[in-house]
């Protein structure tokens, strides 16, 4: 019987929901399982209600599911809000000595979490780890794996020892307090997989691609990128500047890009609003820069800790005037790594801003992936000026070429002077108002899109080549849509999916072709208006049959999508 098991940890901010969730994910990843985990939290430091879901499977998973097999309820809200989500044989672990009068006791299993933490582990702080130990007993898992992970997580010493004792206490209590486990989840293999979030994958991609400069201003859900980059900066020829605002951040990154290093910034929608003028600066000065927009629901502050794909149309059009840009949207944690490498190559080859559109769901969800094959990371810095081939005194930063790409020189590294201007400029880079120069510079910049279009990868069609219904998605919804297609196929629906992780240049021909072959086509988007559907219409002239949209700040689940598709009459 295939394994597909779902844990949930619920509690207030400050109760250790995140750390128990992460540890759960980690111990199952270590046991050879595939894991997908997401975090649902409020915009506050203490209190409120947060939960962390950990899905454990023996095959690859890329989405969350609703039914909870084991719930660790660290507070009353977790029972009240999630008891109904328990699977028919699901169990909720809670501390019956602290949470009384729970109403229905369906599936409830009381463990004196706080008492055990105080008596066996030396303090209330370990309450969450007692619950973790109990949860692992319910699935008859190997506690040794947890012990190893705890030592790695906390470092050898008192804290790790306390947590090990706490886990053991919970495990023992559950063993004697209940008859039999819910389900046996024994470690299945010693396959080594990484467990990481979308933001961590982006950070690793950036470092692998040779990003040497980052400037940013903290904003959920992008902040962990700047924190990771800062943490690794000492050992990786990298500088991360915590700037005074997003305007400074993008302009610093552009300054560094002009000076010849790979540079980036990361923010969320309203921070990106402040970066928009910088986008045009990169456009007209032809300076490479990578900008991460980890979307959250807007407008303005919106829902700060939740997810949405509402920035697509904004990102495509942000700034005045015409200039080339590229927009990429990673489909999964693994894709986030490779897309980031591609973003740095494109930014330098085509000397333009590249925006990576991710979102809270991908940014903060954990997934297991095979270790990235670094021998496949190709670095392409594009056309570079060489003193051997050209006289430095004749160098012109914005030389008009057939491809539109002018070789880059870096200031100070040769005698070539590198001149550029956010005013319209001549080939040398000096400001000009000449009509002819203006026309040739605009055309030169736009010509770069021609080569970029040749390099763009066509979106992949998953499932049968021909199907009655095609589902079209972009970015982080890949996992949920992919699984929904599987559900629908099992139910006899003729369905396939087209997923886009490169949005600009837009792969108009392949999208038009797929739409023309399907009787019905639906876009699936985490926004209120169907922004991809509008893009498809604009670029292909075609209408999709319908839009399956969700804009409550929560991610799609496969079953939600399958039901929505069936409701459309497919």
């Amino acid at each position, binding site marked *: 019987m295939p394994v597909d098991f779902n844990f949930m940890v619920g509690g207030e901010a400050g109760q250790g929901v995140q750390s128990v969730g992460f540890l759960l994910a980690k111990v199952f990843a270590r046991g050879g399982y595939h894991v997908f985990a997401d975090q649902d939290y409020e915009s506050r430091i203490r209190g409120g209600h947060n939960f962390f879901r950990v899905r454990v499977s023996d095959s690859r998973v890329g989405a969350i599911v609703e039914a909870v097999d084991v719930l660790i309820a660290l507070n009353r809200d977790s029972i009240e809000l999630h008891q109904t989500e328990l699977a028919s044989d699901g169990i909720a672990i809670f501390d019956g000595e602290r949470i009384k009068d729970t109403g229905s006791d369906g599936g409830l299993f009381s463990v004196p979490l706080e008492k055990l933490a105080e008596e066996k582990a030396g303090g209330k702080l370990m309450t969450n780890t007692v619950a973790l130990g109990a949860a692992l007993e319910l699935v008859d898992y190997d506690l040794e794996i947890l012990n190893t992970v705890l030592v790695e997580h906390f470092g050898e010493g008192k804290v790790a020892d306390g947590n090990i004792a706490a886990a053991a206490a919970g495990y023992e209590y559950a063993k004697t307090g209940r008859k039999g486990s819910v389900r046996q989840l024994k470690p299945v293999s010693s396959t080594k997989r990484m467990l990481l979030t979308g933001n961590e994958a982006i950070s690793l991609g950036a470092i692998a691609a040779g990003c040497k*400069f980052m400037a940013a201003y903290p904003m959920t859900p992008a902040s962990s990128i700047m924190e990771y980059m800062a943490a690794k900066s000492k050992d990786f020829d990298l500088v991360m500047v915590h700037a005074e605002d997003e305007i400074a951040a993008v302009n610093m990154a552009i300054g560094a890009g*002009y000076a010849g290093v790979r540079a980036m910034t990361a923010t969320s929608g309203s921070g990106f609003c402040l970066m928009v003028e910088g986008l045009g600066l990169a456009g007209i000065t032809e300076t490479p820069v990578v900008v991460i927009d980890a979307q959250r629901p807007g407008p303005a502050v919106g829902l700060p800790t939740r997810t949405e794909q509402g920035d697509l149309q904004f990102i495509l059009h942000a700034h005045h005037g015409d200039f080339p840009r590229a927009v990429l949207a990673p489909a999964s944690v693994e894709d986030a790594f490779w897309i980031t490498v591609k973003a740095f190559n494109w930014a330098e080859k085509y000397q333009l801003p590249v925006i990576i559109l991710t979102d809270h769901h991908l940014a903060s969800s954990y997934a297991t992936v095979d270790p990235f094959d670094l021998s496949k990371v190709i670095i392409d810095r594009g056309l570079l000026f060489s003193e051997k081939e050209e006289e430095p005194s004749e160098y012109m930063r914005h030389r008009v070429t057939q491809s539109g790409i002018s070789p880059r020189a870096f200031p100070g590294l040769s005698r070539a002077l590198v001149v550029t201007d956010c005013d319209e400029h001549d080939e040398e880079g000096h400001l000009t108002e000449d009509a002819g120069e203006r026309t040739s510079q605009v055309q030169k910049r736009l010509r770069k899109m021609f080569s970029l279009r040749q390099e763009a990868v066509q979106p992949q069609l998953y499932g049968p080549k021909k199907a009655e219904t095609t589902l079209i998605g972009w970015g982080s919804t890949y996992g949920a849509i992919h699984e929904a297609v599987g559900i629908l196929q099992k139910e006899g629906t003729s369905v396939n999916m087209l997923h886009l992780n490169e949005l600009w240049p837009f792969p108009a021909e392949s999208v038009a072709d797929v739409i023309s072959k399907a009787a019905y086509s639906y876009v699936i988007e985490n926004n209120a208006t169907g922004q991809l559907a509008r893009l498809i219409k604009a670029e292909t002239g075609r209408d999709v049959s319908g839009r399956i949209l969700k804009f409550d700040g929560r991610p799609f689940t496969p079953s939600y999508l399958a039901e929505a598709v069936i409701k459309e009459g497919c």
Partner: protein
Amino acid sequence: MVTLSDYAGLQPAWCPGCGNFGILKALNQALVELEIEPHHVLLVSGIGQAGKLPHYTRCNVFNSLHGRPVPSAIGARIANSDLVVIAVSGDGDGYGEGGNHFIHAARRNHDITYLVHNNQVYGLTKGQASPTSDAGFVTKTTPYGAANPVNPVSLAIVSGASFVARGFAGDSEHLASLIKQGITHRGFSLIDILQPCVSFNHRNTYSWYRERVYKLEDESGYDPGDKKAALERAFEWGEKIPIGIIYMKKLPVYEDQILTLRKGPLVTRGITPERVESLLAEFI
């Protein structure tokens, strides 16, 4: 040997008699006297008449957005620590649009030199009040007179800048000496430059300044390392206006704190993706 002809740039499009000419002359002179070759210099400017200055000399140029030369300059300085990075603004660009960057660049004490052409009026947009216009200055956008001006010198000092000077475009020899010291100083060096605008500011003219400016170095006993004394001089504006180095102190420099930069300029380091292997292992 570096000569003035190495720094011969395009023909300036400034009004005849503009204070900018004195600033351009002083800058070129400073770079020549310091024997810095043009390809080692990066001028990062904003928008306004001051922003055009880099085009009228000869070196690397990043003519940035309005108000943003300082962050662009910081990024370039960190990317290549061998470059002499000088940001150039006007009073609108630097103290209005770019005010936040000014404060924080001073606070973090980045190792760049910042020239602000301060003519107390908007030139390029034709005569509106600027953040440093004298209180009561009536213009098309300030019919009731301008509000109290920003005091850039005191703002730089209290924000943490380690070199704060004021020059006068009408005395380019003196200004050149300030620019030289600003470039040589390690840390954020502000040189606020009194710049007559012959077209739109008929109040703060060459003769108005000449009657008032005096050189701090001519006063025996003035100690630019004394913050209190410096702040007192920063507020002196009326009958007498001090020019020269108002405040100077050796303070920790942002770039010096970054261990990575001690190994040489970032731009000269190679890219080695396989080094990331050790990071991948941390996630297994």
